[in-house]
C-alpha cells in the first residue's frame, strides 16, 4: 500500500468520508475538532508533526506533502 493509499484509508476510517487528494476539509465537512482529531491520527500513523503545520494544510494533498 502506498503512503497515499494509507492516508486516504485513514481519512475514510477517521471521518467516514471518501476523500481524494483534492478534497478540502470544507469538502469533507470537518469542523475544528474533527480536523485536529484527524491530524493527530495522521501524526500517530505517519509522524511528520502535521498538526503543527495546520495553517499550511487546506486539502488532503497538503497532508500528503507534509508527511512525505
Amino acid at each position: 500500500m502506498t503512503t497515499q493509499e494509507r492516508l486516504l484509508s485513514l481519512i475514510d476510517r477517521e471521518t467516514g468520508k471518501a476523500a481524494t487528494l483534492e478534497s478540502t476539509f470544507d469538502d469533507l465537512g470537518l469542523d475544528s475538532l474533527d480536523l485536529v482529531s484527524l491530524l493527530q491520527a495522521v501524526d500517530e500513523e505517519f509522524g511528520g508533526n502535521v498538526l503543527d503545520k495546520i495553517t499550511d494544510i487546506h486539502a488532503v494533498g497538503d497532508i500528503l506533502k507534509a508527511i512525505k
Partner: protein
Amino acid sequence: MITFQEEPFAKFFKDGQALFVQHHKELALNQEKIEMEMDEQKYQALEDAKILFVLTVRDQGYLIGYLVAFIMPHMHYKSAGLMALTDMYFIRPLSRRGAGARMFIEFEKRMKARGVVQIMTSCKKHQDHSQLLEKLGWNNTDFTFTKVLI
C-alpha cells in the same frame, strides 16, 4: 486562501466593526443590560504599552476572524516570565471549518516565539470549545462566575 497575521490595533479595529457586532450578538451575555462599546483609546494605550496582541484571520484579505490577547508578566508571578490572556476571539460562522483550530495553534506558536511561558483563555458555556482546547493540549483549570448587579 486563509492567512494569519499580527496587525496593528487601528487597522484591525477599522476592519473589524461588522465582525464585532456579529461576535457580540452570538456570544455576549446580558445584552439587554450591557451594551457593546469597545474602548478604542484603551486598546490603543495597551498596544502602545506593548501589552496588546492582535492576530487576525483573513480570507483573500477579508477579515473573517481574530484573537486578541494581553501579554505581560502576571501580577502574582512577576518574575515568572510573560503570560498571555486572551481578551476575545471569534471566527465568523461561515468560515469556521477548521479555522478556529488553526487560529489557536498559530496563537500558541507566536506566543512560544515571543518567550511567553503560559497562555490562558476561556470560552462560553453556551459556546463550549473545551473539547477542542483539550485536544490542543490546554488544561481546563478554572470556572468563571458572573453576576449582573443592575
